[in-house]
Structures are given as C-alpha cells and as structure tokens.
C-alpha cells in the first residue's frame, strides 16, 4: 500500500472513531492497544490498573480525537495521553493489597526469566516518581525535555531522578544477590 493510501486509511479510521464507530475504535485498539497497555503496565506496575488506564484511554478517545490536530504520529500522541493518564492514576492511587496479590504471573522457568523477574521486582520497588522517569526515558525513549513536560518538572529534575533511579536499581540488584 502506498504512503498516501496509508494516510487516507488512517484518516478514515480517525474519522470513524471521532464519529463513535465501535468498529473503528476496535481497529484502533487492535493496532495500538497492546503497546499502550505495556506502557501503562510499566508505569503503574499492576495489570488491573494498567488495563483500567487503557480502558479509560479508549473510552475517552472519540471525544479526545476531536481535539487531535493530526500533527505527528498518532501512536506517539496516544502514548503521551496514556502516560499522562497513568501518572494521574499513580498520584491518586494507594496500592491495594488484594489487587496486587490477585495477578497470577507466569513462574520463571529459565535463568534469564529469573533475572528479569529480579529486575522487574527492583523496578517495582522504586518510588513512583523515580520509576516513572526511568520507564519513560530508558524503555520508552522519551527525551528529558518531553518527560519534564509530561511531569511538570524541570529537565534538570528529570535527569536527577533518572540518576537516582539507576543508582537505587543497581543497589537493589546487588543486595538481592
């Protein structure tokens, strides 16, 4: 499919979502939902909360897309909205024991999985304000300026939080050995 055909198909999909079409919303979900879920999961750390964030993003999308100016990538815009929503949830949330215990994650069956689990556990143990910067910068690849914009902090503060997050992460992994 040519670039112009892709653009036309994308524009018609966006129009469909704006108009409230469930089919268009489903198509958009299938294209972007899993990626947005992974971002939300890394930010909030709990499967149910991440699903709630993605649920809210797509439920609010038809109205929000009316304000979308179609400059830049739709995927990047959706990620920014998801990250903001996840951050709002983090600020509101008190961790709920019954929810965090509920998630049944697969047990590690290889050495590599065990290492990942230790790393994941260390990342989850970081304070929210540090983990968020770490995830946005090192996993999602945002620039410090963008993170500062999302979090309402200075670029300097974003750099400092990242350095602290990495320092704590290393210490947690060393202590765990």
């Amino acid at each position, binding site marked *: 499919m040519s670039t112009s055909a892709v653009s036309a198909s994308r524009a018609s999909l966006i129009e469909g979502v704006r108009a409230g079409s469930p089919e268009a919303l489903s198509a958009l979900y299938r294209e972007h939902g899993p990626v947005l*879920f*992974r971002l939300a999961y890394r930010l909030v750390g709990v499967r149910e909360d991440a699903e709630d964030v*993605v649920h809210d993003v797509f*439920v*609010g999308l038809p109205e929000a897309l009316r304000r979308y100016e179609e400059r830049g990538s739709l995927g990047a815009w959706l990620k920014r*909205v998801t990250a903001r*929503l996840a951050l709002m949830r983090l600020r509101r949330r008190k961790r709920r024991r019954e929810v965090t215990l509920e998630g049944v994650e697969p047990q590690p069956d290889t050495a590599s999985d065990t290492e990942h689990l230790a790393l*994941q556990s260390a990342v989850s143990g970081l304070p929210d304000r540090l983990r968020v910067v770490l995830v946005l910068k090192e996993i999602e690849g945002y620039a410090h300026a963008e993170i500062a914009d999302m979090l309402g902090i200075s670029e300097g503060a974003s750099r400092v939080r990242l350095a602290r997050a990495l320092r704590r992460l*290393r210490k947690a992994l060393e202590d765990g050995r």
Partner: protein
Amino acid sequence: MSPESLCEELRKVPSPEPSIDLLPRILASRAAGVRIVLPTARPGRTRWSIASAAAAVAMAVLGWLAFQMVVPGGWRSESITSDQGASDFLERTPLFLATAYAQEVSDTLGRATYRLLDRVTDTRLTPGSWSYEATMTVDGRITTPQGSRRFTIAPDTYRGEPVWIVATEGKGTYARAPFRDSLIVAQRDLRLLRHSSDLGPGPRVWELSRDSAARFLSWRYADVSWLGSLYRALFQLERLDRDWRGSVYLPWLRGKDGRCTFYALNLHVTGVERVTTPAGTFDAWRVAVQGRRNDMTVWVSTDTRWVVKVAIASGQDAVWEQVLVSATPPAP
C-alpha cells in the same frame, strides 16, 4: 552492571499482554454511555483549565440564581427534609438532567472505572435470615468483638401489595444503640416503596412510592443511606462470574443545606475462594469493592449468593471482618 547494560536489560524485561476482555469492556462502557475526558492538554495549560472551570462554576451559579427567580420560592419552597431521597432532590434541581444523574456527575468522591451497573440480573430474592458476627484483628494477634448483625428478607403485604421486607438489625461498637434499617420492595418488580431507619440521629422514613420516577432495588438506584445495610440483597440478585465488574455512583445528601455529593464505588470479582465460617463452608466469589478511601472485600457464595464474609483493612496492621454465623433456612 553499567548503566548502559542495566538499561538494555530493562528493555528486555517482558510485560504481560492485556486480557482478551479489555476490548469488549471498552465497547460496553462506550455503549453504556460512559464518557471520560482525557488529559490531552499539557500541564502548562492548567491555568486555562482553572479559568474554564471558574467560568463553568460562574455559569452554574447564574443558572441557579435564574432558577430561583423563575420558580416562585425556588426549590426551597418545598424544603428538603430527611423523608425525601437524594434522587428526589436531584430531580428538582435545574443542573441535573435525569440522564446526567445516571451517567455524568459533577460533585464526586472517586470515579467510576467500570461500566455502570444499570440493572441487576435477577428479580427473585430468597427469603430467610442471616446472622453475622464482626471482629477486629490487630497485628494478626489481638482480636476483639465488634458486634453483630442480622439480615432478613421476609414476605409481607404493604398497601395491599405483596412485598419483601429487607432489613438489617445490628448492635456493636459501630452503633451506640441497636439499630434497624429496612426497605420495603414490591415482590412483582422490586420497586422501592419505603425505607426506614433508626440509625443515627433518630428514626427516619422515606416514602419512596411517592417518587414521580419509579426506582427499583438495584445498584443504579442505590442510595448511601441504605446501601451499607442492604447490599446483601443486591448480591442475591447478581449472577456473578469471573469477569463480573461494575461501578456505581451513589448520591449522598450531606448536611442541613442538602448538598449532594456522588460517591463512586467500583466492584469487581477477583477470584473464587473456599471460605469457612461458623455457618458452614462455602465456595465464594471474592469481590473487591473499592471506594475513594476504603476498600472492602466481600465473599459471596457461588451457589446460594449469600454474603458469607466481609473484610475491611483498617490501616496497615488491622482488619475488620464480619462472617456468617448462622442462616435460616440453613445452607443446602
């Protein structure tokens, strides 16, 4: 491990996939009329948001004043008293349309995160009597009794119509004196007819049958003033399953000025557990009920739909639990 290799490892950490019911849940929420305003604006635009909110408040006040001028005496001509339900109050105010009452709310504590529970799935209540005992356990060791409750559903007649009397009686540390809270509902369609309570400042009666709009025993028409005592009846009317989840906005009329706030509750089934209480052993759905500040877990028997246990965490080291100690007729 260097920062670079640490970050490289971080990117490799797998994350789970969303569950397959997420898309159907999104579509169901949209179909049910749920609307969510997404934070698309940058934080730098907060000032504009505040200005917009201030303008909206000003418009609301102007609307209110206009209403006071247009309607002789305004709504206070029929003063809001304790024998009128919160929704009754809302139906008289100019700022709440009937549909808005159901789906979009303004003054809220907490927010609905699931589809709104519009209706219960069954209409058949089971008559009987269920007794509960409550305890508070601190630090996993010190347990003190917290009182008892008896929940009953009994057939009766009211103004010549067959009804259910759904009642909760209790005594304990949460109430200075024994209390009784009862709701009369029509057997035919579960329409709410009358609510009476002697919990709090004194006996109060709400004649719900006088409401212009019929309200029924359901989460949607639940009211903070009776839900706490009578939610056990609502669980009898729900066919729970592993994916069951839903939200409800409860109107809460506060203070002498009749200010109404909506209190959001989010409920979802988090699993099945075998629960043993003095009344027997039950396979029960574990339902998380999340409010703004307090979370509660309710265990509902999978076959009888009885509430067999309730737990509320109190701080980090204490838990309040209420368990079923006897039932009449007994569990099959």
